């Protein structure tokens, strides 16, 4: 197969898997970590207690899960941002925009890995 544009397939597969994962997981996380406690709901405030969270984040499975969600969501989101920039007719060439977008996603993923690993 021609390689010319084929690596797009790789980024697109991350985008679409990331799209599914973030669609499923992100809203409930937003609600549980910001909106729920912010509205003063006790059960969410309780859940956010330091001891609970540090115990939870000590669990390897939870760590893994969180890493996957963060990484894929980033690849998903930066793919979209790349296209958003094109759609807004920002006068920059497509190649650097794509490279920068995916670079940011990779940086974010590495940061997430370090943060979670250092926990």
């Amino acid at each position, binding site marked *: *197969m*021609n390689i*010319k*544009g*084929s*690596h*797009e*397939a*790789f980024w*697109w*597969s991350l985008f*679409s898997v990331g799209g599914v994962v973030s669609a499923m997981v992100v809203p409930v996380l937003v609600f549980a970590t910001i909106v729920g406690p912010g509205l003063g709901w006790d059960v969410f405030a309780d859940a956010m207690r330091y001891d609970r969270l540090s115990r939870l984040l000590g669990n390897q499975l939870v760590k893994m899960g969180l890493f996957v969600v963060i990484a894929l969501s980033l690849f998903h989101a930066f793919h979209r941002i790349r*296209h958003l920039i*094109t*759609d807004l*007719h920002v006068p920059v060439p497509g190649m650097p925009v794509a490279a920068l977008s995916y670079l940011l996603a990779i940086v974010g993923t590495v940061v997430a890995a370090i943060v979670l690993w250092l926990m």
Partner: protein
Amino acid sequence: MGSKVTFEVFRFDSETEESSYQDFEMEYEDEWVILDGLNYIKGFIDGSLSHRWSCRMGVCGSCGMIVNGYPTLTCSTFIRDYLPGPIRVEPLTNFKVERDLIVNLDDFLRKLQQISPWIVRDEERAIEHGEYLQTPAELATFKQFTLCINCMLCYSACPVVSHELNFIGPAVLTLGHRYNLDSRDQGADMRLDEMLSSDGIWSCTFVGECSQVCPKHVDPAGAIQQSKVSGVMAYFKSFVMSSGSRE
């Protein structure tokens, strides 16, 4: 006869590069489509108006134009649905205008040829051996994508086409997908080369406007999205196969 309507028609002459809108008021009949209005103008008011049309039954694909801002097949939409007017008729967007309502289709035809829209076989079956067998279920997988009449409405509606001139575009990618899905065809690898190129399917951001304007419900957006999935499969397969061959 009796009721009147006004058409605001885009006029353009590529020689002088002057464009304008010209108003035509006319009496129309209830069963008139937009195209009938244009033909009336041409026949009885101003013979210099230029537009394409042929079958007047929604199958030849000649008479796509922008009606009140929306890509439309003018032989299939009725004046009565746009009342009280005025009705603005313009040439398809995203194409170079050649004259009045006539646009240049060279790019489309070039792209069409580029995708190899024909059955590719490693070995042709002799005519004497009869037809290739194809079950109704196999036919059904691609039938919808054969219904494209090349009317260009999807190109006009596509925001990607508007800023990426080389984007192969909805109709052609759909036809490529149609042949890839055809159980008689063996040319998918070759066609995918084009479809997965930098001007191919990855430029599509799945806006879906192409499917919205398609008068034949071909769903180019769906076809392209399905091609992306096939493209991902092909990508990982080629990866596995090339790493396998290294061992």
